[in-house]
């Protein structure tokens, strides 16, 4: 099975600045209906990567391919297979939602009758059925977001690129949007590239995640595998001489590192019970002041990748070579 997105030593220069610094990755599986999360702090190069995949920027070196087609040299083939929902307000003024979707569908290659039919169908699907004859300019922010999603899927693309789809949505609308994205991949077999600042959105919807920082890929993870590994993390605060704690933890099969005097971060494999920490602390004559326990969240993965928190014990340090491949 071929990858949905293949990026090979991709460099993109805008003016004098090199935004993407030779990144390489293979994301998604063609026809599998997977969602890929694209994360990174502001200025990491997420939007530039999306725009390069859309053929808006010419790579200065390397190449990017979508569904086997080169994003620059075969832009027409690529664009016929993708749908794009931009981050900012994008619509055509003085047009009803139906006319707008019909126009977008026809430009994407749908015959007239099919475009009109799909326009109605997709507007009902995203919850704008009752307002489909209203001009888009009169829509609320949430409705405009839904209309943008509708135009991205009206022609039934193989890959949908969503740039901050939940921006400005209230909690209920946000859940509706995430549900629609889930349905897109699970029921309609579309691949989704989701760029978002909201890690919970990505965690809820995506199967893979790529984290960019300073124009380089700093982490790429299969969230499904991460979830299956079911690693549990414990934040342990103790009082006493804890110099022997690391060795004692290893004896019971756990691993831990001291993040500050008396503050420990411990990884518990699936077969190690949290209760086994009490005898360890007792043997080491340590008084437990605080014990918090949770699964590895995407937030932790993200913060580790961008260097805001220390690495989890047991993780190999992620060395990012010059070309950005992990």
């Amino acid at each position, binding site marked *: 099975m071929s990858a949905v997105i293949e990026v090979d030593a991709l460099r993109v220069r*805008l*003016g*004098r*600045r090199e935004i993407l610094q030779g990144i390489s990755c293979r994301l998604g599986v063609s026809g599998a209906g997977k969602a890929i999360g694209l994360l990174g702090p502001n200025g990491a190069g997420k939007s530039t990567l999306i*725009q390069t995949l*859309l*053929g*808006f*920027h010419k790579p200065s070196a390397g190449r990017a391919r979508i569904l086997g087609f080169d994003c620059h040299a075969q*832009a*027409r083939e690529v*664009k*016929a297979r*993708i*749908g*794009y929902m*931009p981050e*900012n*307000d*994008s*619509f*055509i*003024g*003085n047009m009803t939602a139906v*006319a707008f979707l019909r*126009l*977008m*569908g*026809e*430009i*994407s*290659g*749908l*015959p007239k009758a*099919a475009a009109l*039919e*799909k326009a*109605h*169908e*997709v507007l*009902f*699907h995203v919850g704008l*059925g009752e307002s489909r004859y209203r001009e888009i*300019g009169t829509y609320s922010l949430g409705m405009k977001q839904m209309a943008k999603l509708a*135009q991205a*899927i*009206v*022609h*039934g693309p193989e890959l949908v*690129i969503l740039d901050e789809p939940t921006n400005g949505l209230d909690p209920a609308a946000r859940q509706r949007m995430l549900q629609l994205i889930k349905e897109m991949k699970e029921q*309609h*077999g*579309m691949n989704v590239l989701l760029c978002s600042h909201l890690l919970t959105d990505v965690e809820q919807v995506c199967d893979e995640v790529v984290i960019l920082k300073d124009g380089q890929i700093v982490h790429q993870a299969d969230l499904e595998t991460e979830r299956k590994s079911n690693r549990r993390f414990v934040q342990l605060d103790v009082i006493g001489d804890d110099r022997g704690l690391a060795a004692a933890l290893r004896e019971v099969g756990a691993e831990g590192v001291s993040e500050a005097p008396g503050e420990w971060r411990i990884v518990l494999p699936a077969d190690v019970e949290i209760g086994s920490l009490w005898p360890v602390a007792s043997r080491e004559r340590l008084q437990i002041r605080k014990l918090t326990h949770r699964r590895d969240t995407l937030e932790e993965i993200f913060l580790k990748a961008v260097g805001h928190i220390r690495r989890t014990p047991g993780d190999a340090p992620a060395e990012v070579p010059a070309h950005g491949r992990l």
Partner: protein
Amino acid sequence: MAVYRRGYQRYDGPTTSHFARLMVMPRFSWERILGQRFVVILLVVSLFWPMLCAGFIYLSNHSELWQGFGGGIKKFLAINGNFFSIFMNVQSTFALILASVAGPGLIAPDLANNALPLYFSRPLTRWDYILSRMIVLLGILSLVTILPGMLLFGMQASIAGGDWFVHNWFLGTGIFIGFTLYIAMISLVAMASSAYVKWRVVAGALVLAFFFLLAGAAEMVNSIFRVDWASALNPTYAINAVWKGLLDVEIADDKPGAWECATVILGLSGGLLALLARKLRAVEVVK
């Protein structure tokens, strides 16, 4: 089954050709432009002059109707390059007004509503976009220029007979090429002003001002440097000179000729096209 009961399904049917996709935007735009009352009135008014000219052709070909008049009337009623040159001059004014009304609404709304990423993320390049927007104006303007011009030429040829056609076929090609060049130029002016000025009224005024400003600038150059070649920079003069060349009408010796003027018009159009291409990008890059 009703649409609202059916639920969304991915489209997997046949897709249209690239040409059909290119014609989608013009179809939608024509629908919108022809929905404007002022445009329709303007279109109707602009057909009065061709109807008068048709009457003139009818009269000139029916000598029995003006037998009692003197010999000078025969020269006056002759259907030749001069006649079509006058027809084109008058009709071009209507075309210019129409372009200044219909043109500004073409690109400015797309820029104001950030619609370009939506177009360019589909199988449509920047040049496709420019071409399809240009087709909108070319289609509307040809209704008041090429179409009545060719109808008048056809009418004259059919009444006057094959002999007249054999000797004057160049008038037909002249009308077609001359008007095509003119409406292409004013379409580009209207599109460029629409791309750079978001207020419709100002953009429309800019289309008209383009001709007055360049005419003034050309006259200034002529006066300051005591030359005549700068007249070619005056778009109105330049297009007139090209028409006269195509219709075999005499041009003053001391002024730039048809070829020089055609070169200037093509250069001007190229410049406008470059301006448009520079402005129409999917994303604004801050360098």
